[in-house]
């Protein structure tokens, strides 16, 4: 595995994550946008992650909780549940299992915000990237024909693309299916372009940077590093100025809460707010800080972070992650070779495993 290539693929993973958040914001913006008044419906709500309850009839996860990436509630309108699947695998079996799993939202879900709307039903949107949209739509049709997948609710596949011509736009367009709201369906069939500036400066959800998928490790480390500086007390700042370094004791839960507050979906969903980001992800990030020498563990879920003014920290995190991945691949390869040497008769099987 080539290090520069791995660094590049990690950066692409980060970009995909950021792009997904932007795409969800674009969908929220469009669904909350009132075409008559040309502004967002003030009573409408967008939840970037909300725990909903499934029924006993749920085909995938009965009597459980599910967390769609986005829930839109509007007064007197059908709720909309959105699931983003950008990095859909090229492996047909893997993709099939992901698509089948989407059926967990095709249920009489409960737990929508009744303060916004008394309507209990919902539509379902699968949000996919432009490049995979056709393939995914065809795959779903095949699965429907073979009765391996079924959607009883209104189900729509919307694809999106970032379009940078003169300005940068998010373009959404409906590939198949439709929503209860016929006006939105027709509009999305023709495709909708949203100025990226509107999404960035949106007062309600502009600051959201995490959704219900684990952020890539370098991105999370980057956010934590910045947060450590945001949090410094005056005393600590002065010590940093004097000594170019200050040690700060932190707990995973405190940092997780601060990350959730700064970049997560907030607490609008009350008890139904999911843990975004998850504590174990934050802990993994701190473990990575320990490995890179920027923190040390003092006890379970507690660390000392070595706050220093470091340049190009995001680059360093991407490179560090790439080095770890390359090392893991290398070690696996060495292990495989050793096994081949020990068990030459199993060589074809072990060679196949590599592929």
């Amino acid at each position: 595995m080539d290090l520069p290539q791995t660094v590049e693929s990690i950066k692409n993973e980060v970009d995909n994550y950021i792009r997904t958040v932007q795409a969800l914001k674009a969908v929220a913006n469009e669904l909350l946008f009132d075409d008559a008044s040309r502004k967002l419906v003030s009573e409408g709500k967008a939840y970037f992650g909300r725990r909903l309850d499934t029924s006993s009839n749920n085909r995938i996860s009965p009597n459980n909780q599910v967390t769609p990436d986005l829930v839109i509630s509007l007064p007197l309108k059908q709720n909309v549940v959105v699931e983003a699947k950008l990095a859909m695998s090229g492996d047909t079996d893997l993709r099939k299992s992901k698509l089948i799993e989407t059926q967990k939202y095709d249920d009489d879900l409960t737990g929508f915000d009744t303060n916004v709307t008394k309507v209990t039903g919902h539509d379902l949107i699968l949000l996919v990237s432009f490049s995979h949209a056709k393939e995914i739509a065809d795959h779903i049709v095949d699965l429907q024909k073979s009765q391996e997948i079924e959607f009883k609710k209104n189900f729509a596949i919307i694809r999106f693309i970032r379009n940078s011509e003169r300005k940068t736009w998010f373009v959404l367009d409906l590939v198949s299916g439709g929503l209860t709201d016929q006006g939105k369906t027709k509009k999305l069939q023709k495709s909708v372009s949203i100025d990226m500036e509107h999404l960035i400066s949106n007062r309600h959800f502009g600051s959201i940077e995490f959704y219900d998928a684990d952020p890539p490790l370098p991105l999370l480390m980057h956010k934590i590093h910045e947060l450590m500086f945001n949090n410094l007390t005056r005393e600590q700042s002065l010590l940093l100025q004097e000594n170019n370094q200050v040690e700060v004791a932190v707990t995973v839960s405190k940092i997780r809460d601060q990350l959730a507050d700064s970049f997560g979906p907030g607490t609008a969903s009350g008890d139904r707010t999911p843990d975004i980001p998850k504590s174990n992800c934050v802990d993994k990030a701190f473990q990575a800080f320990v490995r890179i020498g920027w923190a040390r563990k003092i006890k379970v879920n507690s660390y000392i972070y070595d706050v220093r003014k470091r340049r190009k920290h995001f680059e360093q995190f991407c490179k560090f992650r790439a080095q770890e991945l390359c090392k893991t691949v290398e070690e696996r390869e060495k292990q495989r070779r050793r096994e081949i040497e020990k068990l030459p008769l199993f060589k074809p099987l072990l060679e196949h495993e590599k592929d």
Partner: protein
Amino acid sequence: MNAYQKIENQFFSPQDGWSELREAAEKACREGFHINGAMFSCTKPFNVLLRYLKDKHAISRGLSLTGSKFYLVQLNRTDPKGNIPKVILWEDSNHPIVYMISCQERPAFDQISYSLHRYLSPYLCKVFLRTNEIHRGLNELRDTHTGASLRVREYTSRSLIDDPNSVKRVRTNREWTDEDYEAVFQKLGEEKHWLNSLRLEIRGRQISSGRIWRDATFSCESGFGYFFETVVGTVRQAVVKSETFFEKRDRHSSPTHTSRPLKIVYSEDIFSDKRQNYRLIETLNRLNDSALSVYHPNPYFHGSLVDYADGSSYDLWVTSPGAILVVPKKSTTDSIERVCNYICDEFQEGDVQEIS
């Protein structure tokens, strides 16, 4: 004691009130001294800043404070010429603004004002004014002081170097002249220059002369009282407006509990040429005491900037050809002023606006 020391001692001796301080400054000017000064906005009450100037951290940094109302602050380290840098510090009676002045030479003044700002940051905020803000301020001065003439004797400005082979991207220009300020601002606009400093002569009830810089510092050569009333008074209004514009923009301090982004708007579509994205990245990478992370350089730019000076952080975006979006995540007024001014001064000056 030589004549220089005598004047300096008189200037820094305890002053009972503004008229005594003004008189001491006028006298120093008459003796050929320049009165160097600066204005800062403050985000904590003045008495809190004074308390900080008396604590153990101030002592360890060599800062000492004496006096009352007009305080004497000393830096107990000598400048290259062997002087102990000193300033007189006081607060504005109507606005959250702090002034500092000194009759010492500019290097000594810069040394102590830098130390004070660094120590009291982010509560003592450095304010930067853009060309149009200084222009508007001088227009107000002309309107409120009927009959006064404002002659520009010298100015420094900056402009872009068009040559793509040049290592430097911005040039500094210096002009000696004797023109009405309006003519100078017209020329700056036509030549796409942005102002760095302006040496003015004001002829009205009295005559005074001095220089103002875009970082709200000044230097008076003659007629200190009139200069302070007119030019510094004008800059003060701009400082108050600027402070109001930049304050409470992050999610935590904003009254709406949401980030209030702003944008630096250019009159031309400069980012139509995508090489400008990379020039912006290069420029931001040179910002002192900060770190830039680039998520996406091209065709649109998305980066994250952490200002290590006080721990503020921002998302920066270029998604349209004529503007840079600055989205404060956690930010202080001092930092956001610094970042916006840096972009305007080192990349290209634009109009800093609210996003509508």
